[in-house]
């Protein structure tokens, strides 16, 4: 039974098949002559290049699809199929389009493992001697240095990936590899066209699997890695709420909790939803209470103003309540000038770090600003009134068009009173949605750790 990528490559020559060692004791056999590990991170200049796959010359026509196959019959363990020339067989300086797939089967594997394992392999590949890897899975740029041209083969690269995957995720039962290298003798880039088309579709399906929402899951995850420094702090990870360190996503958290039950990631049964807009869940409250030395009783995942999650201190950005306009400002670490609070980001970061619950303030990751739940409990983008111009430009595509021009930056003012006038003048949505009679109605924030008055 043919596998999908082979079907897509049906018009190409059948190529060659290699068999990798699959016995746990011999996974790494034969890799001794290739440097492995961090210090081998490579940048391969054109002059040093033996083979290039994809990259700007080919408009990045080089894909890598990593997917979990449900049919065990379609994954022959340790098989490497190569269509086209191998690395030592091309002339030095060759540049070609191509692609590879890593097909995995495991009785106990879930789609959640996919992101985890592909990241582990991607990271591992950064530490392969003479091997340069840039780009995203659907548009890669690979270069192989002349120094390793006679000892590195596609089978060896596959073996390295295989051994890494099998070691890190024991639930994997079988892995198979498919490489297509678009040399002229197999028909060049044109011959690969059906394969590229297949890969494009497959990539959409594969990556779409990761896009589920907080409502779709029953379990969130928590992380207490920073508690060694911020003793009361616990992060909550949901499909839409990335931790501001950006190190671990929901899927990775899930796999990590499963693979390493003694580790720092733990499961949070989300329990009853108490406030949908603000992201307030009973299960989350209970877990955070336990992990915060019983100091934080309640958190709202999508709010910066009321019961925000706590912060350790290494967040790359933060939101802050500006009472003069009853709105929320954003700033990031690289912004070194003043904010409308009259303090710089560094002081702001200092104020709200350490694991205390500071109503009105929240540490953020810049990537997290793209979430549809971003500060939803506070009014989302309709409540964002100020941000540094650099940040605004960087994330322009996630800011709703109707608000974009109305958000004030430091180029206009960093003075809260001037800000008020500007918002009024620009007709920022906050004026109608939150202000009364064109005047802001400042909230009196409770002190850190205290509750809001019952409404």
């Amino acid at each position, binding site marked *: 039974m043919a596998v999908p990528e082979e079907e897509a490559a049906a018009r190409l020559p059948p190529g060659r098949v290699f068999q990798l060692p699959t016995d746990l004791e011999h996974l790494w056999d034969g890799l001794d002559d290739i440097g492995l590990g961090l210090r081998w991170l490579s940048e391969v200049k054109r002059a040093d290049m033996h083979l290039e796959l994809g990259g700007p010359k080919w408009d990045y026509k080089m894909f890598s699809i990593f997917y979990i196959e449900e049919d065990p019959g379609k994954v022959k363990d340790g098989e490497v199929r190569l269509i086209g020339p191998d690395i030592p067989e091309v002339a030095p300086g060759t540049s070609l389009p191509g692609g590879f797939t890593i097909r995995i089967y495991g009785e106990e594997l879930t789609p959640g493992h996919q992101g985890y394992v592909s990241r582990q392999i991607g990271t591992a590949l950064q530490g392969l001697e003479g091997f340069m890897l840039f780009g995203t899975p659907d548009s890669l740029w690979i270069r192989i240095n002349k120094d390793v041209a006679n000892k590195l083969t596609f089978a060896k690269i596959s073996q390295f990936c295989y051994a890494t995957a099998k070691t890190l995720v024991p639930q994997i039962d079988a892995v198979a590899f498919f490489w297509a290298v678009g040399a002229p003798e197999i028909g060049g880039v044109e011959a690969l066209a059906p394969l590229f088309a297949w890969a494009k579709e497959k990539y959409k399906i594969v990556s779409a699997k990761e896009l589920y929402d907080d409502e779709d899951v029953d379990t969130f995850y928590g992380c207490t890695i920073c508690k060694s420094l911020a003793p*009361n702090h616990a992060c909550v990870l949901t499909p839409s709420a990335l931790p501001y360190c950006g190190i671990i996503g929901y899927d990775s958290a899930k796999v990590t909790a499963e693979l390493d039950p003694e580790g720092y990631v733990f499961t949070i049964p989300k329990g009853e939803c108490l406030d949908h807009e603000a992201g307030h869940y009973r299960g989350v409250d209970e877990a955070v209470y336990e992990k915060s030395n019983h100091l934080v009783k309640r958190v709202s995942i999508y709010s910066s103003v009321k019961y925000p999650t706590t912060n350790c201190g*290494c967040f790359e950005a933060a939101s802050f309540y500006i009472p003069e306009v009853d709105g929320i400002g954003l700033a990031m670490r690289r912004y070194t000038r003043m904010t409308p609070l009259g303090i710089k980001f560094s002081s702001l970061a200092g104020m709200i770090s350490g694991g205390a619950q500071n109503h009105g303030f929240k540490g953020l990751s810049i990537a997290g600003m793209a979430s549809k739940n971003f500060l939803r409990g506070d009014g989302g983008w309709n409540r964002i009134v100020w941000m540094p111009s650099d940040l605004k430009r960087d994330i322009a595509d996630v800011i709703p068009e109707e608000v974009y021009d109305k958000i004030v930056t430091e180029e206009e003012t960093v003075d809260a009173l001037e800000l008020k006038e500007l918002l009024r003048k620009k007709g920022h949505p906050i004026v109608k949605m939150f202000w009364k009679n064109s005047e802001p109605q400042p909230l009196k924030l409770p002190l850190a750790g205290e509750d809001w008055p019952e409404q």
Partner: protein
Amino acid sequence: MKEKRIAHVGSLEVDISEVVRDPRGHEDEIVEIMENDFVEGRHSNFGGWITLLPDAADIAELDYALLSRYPPLYTDPEGVCTDCGLGPCNLEDGQGKCGLDMEALQGRLSLRKACRGCMTQMVASRQLLDYALKRWPEATPVSMGEILSISDHAPAISVLSGIHVKTIKDLNRVLTYGEGQLAKLFQASYSGTGTAVNFESMVLHAGSVLLLAMGVAEMLKISCYGFISAANQQLDGIEQFPPATLSCGWASIESGKPVVAFVGDDFLPAWCAVDQMKQDALTEKIEICGLGATGDDIVRFYDRGRIIGPAVRAPKAIRNGLFDVVVISPGCVPLDLLSEAERAESKAIWVGHNGSGDLPDSTDQPIDRIVDRLAGGEKAVWIRDPEKAGKVALQVALRVKRGAPRIISDADAMKQAKGHKHDCDLCTMVCPVGLPVSRAVRQLSGGDWTGFFEVEKGCNFCGKCEQACPSQVHLRDIIVAAERKGAGNDKFVMRPGRGPISITELLQSAFAVGWGSIPAMVTIFGCGDAHRDEIAWIASELLNGGCMVFVAGCAGAEVARSFNQAKKKHLFQQYNATCASRNIVNCGSCSAICHAVPMYLMLRPSGGIPLFGNLPPLGDSISLGGAQTIILWGALPDRMYAAAAAWARLGSTIIVGPASSLGWKRYLVGNRYDRSKWWVRHGETGKRREVEPVKEHMVVPVETKEEALTMLARSVLNVRDYRESRLTHLEVLIDYCERFYQQLPEDWWLAVRSDFELPPRYRRHMVSLLESEHGWETEGVKVNKARHRDGRMMTMSEFAANYGMEQGIYCTRLRSLLPLRLRDTAED
């Protein structure tokens, strides 16, 4: 009775007398610190304490915790004490008349060495400060830079003193405090009667005082003397700041121009000279060079300055005979540079505050007269006024026309080499850095200079070979001749020192360090007392291995010479210069040592730990959880002894090598086999918990560059390692051991808390060894049961609860750093 002063820490109202033992006279400052730098979350958990202008004893709890794990190990001990008139006492026979025992005497001597090191910097900082007080009003504002936050102050000063420095007057205040501390420590080093550990605690304090003095110097340099500072830059583009375009080395000196060289610690004469050159449009006409700290300083305010080499190699450099005028100030090590200048027919100006030889003091003579004297044939003068010294140097340089440098001829060198005693190896045997001198002599007798080219790179001109030579071969002249032969190619490009590291910049890589994507933050110090290729090799290896590297002092120019033939670039041209993986930051001269070990700064934002009068939590935290290590490679001067103590107290491991490690006589080493030493207090229960013997040593010697890297990998394993960082740190350690010694480190298994932390490519092998050699129960790549060091078999969750810290739980070695609710009740 004075009224109670209250500070608002977030929503808390705190009486300042609860956080400072005696706040009198400092009330406003304390309120300001508490209201700006205390974090409510931390304060309500841990309380707060500011050790304001502390004595050593005020911080001793931290010191004793460190020293109980890393007790002093003395080599080559002194047996007789002659410190007072009651002696001498032979302590090998028992206690002396004051009750001192032999080990305590070693502690005294160790403290004396640290004080000497601290003192050299203290004098230099005082010199700068006194001159600044003459030139600028004492209310002149000072800072490390205007744009980037260094937590808004100078941590090297504030962490010890608790003072927020804002003006020159404040600097005077903190330096006066430092001088007072130094006096107390010196007194103890002669008449103290404590234990060795007691003295070593004071050694650590001498280190902290040294950092304070360095901080004062750096702040003055940036605020008053126009030195470049990274904190005056925007973050964008900082990876190329300052640009790697500074030309240094012998071949960077433009021939035909007069050359003035400045040597030592005091850059003021050079600063005054450059000021004068700019006024008189002389910058194109005179070449300005520097050796040692002054060289590293000059290039921070004068982009045409040239660094020639470290201070310890100044005698060799002067004998090259290329300098028309040499301006000599006291430095980190005493050297007879006046004789070398005379030998090379260079005019010398001594600018020390005390005399040198029998030179009369010419400070009050008119400039013209001094210039006439030097131009007329006098060899050297003593001028204590930096402005006058600078002017005289320039005028003399323009008037004196010197011929070609006097270098031993090839024929003479070969003749001497031929006259050597065959089969004699004395020169090699006495060489403190183990250079193959005798082989070089044999080669030269056949006309081959190769051996001497190699010897020259490692030689710091101590002259021991020459003294030992029974054939009276003028080895140092030959070594200088070898250097001159290569001088035409001795040109390298580097970044000048950039001054401080900002917290903002550092935080960009905080997670990468925490998660092990950056295996280590490594700082390299060195004073030229080692083969310079070795220090460059170490730096390159670390950079290739993904580390974040910092250098300060003479090490900067030493590593800068490294040239990558394939890339056709010098080291600083190959790498960016910010706080990130594969970046190398040159902080500046010796005083910039106070910037170059920045990991503790991360604790302010991440843990809310204020950086004012607050050493214990910083030292405790880094010693348990910091992947920051210092390599001191070829660092002979006592100043480095004190600098090592300073950073050890702030939790870093210090690796000392190669040859200078023999001269240190005192190390602070751990013992992995003594399980009683390896414990922490659990932050949620207060109970003691056995942990892995990681961060095994505090100050430890190594002999080879390979050992240095292996020890480095060992030193970054730490109790608070996250899963991922433990994996990286183990992988780096195993890689080095496999590469250099073709074996696994013998104790690797003691660092295993979970199979999850074993590097993938070694995991199966390691798991099988855990079963076959250590009796663990395993299956494939998984560990099912672990055997505790006490012999008990445990499930992995039991093991996690009994060995090492659980992931993400606060821990400490100090009772005073437990959360308030546990502090009084935690068991001993």
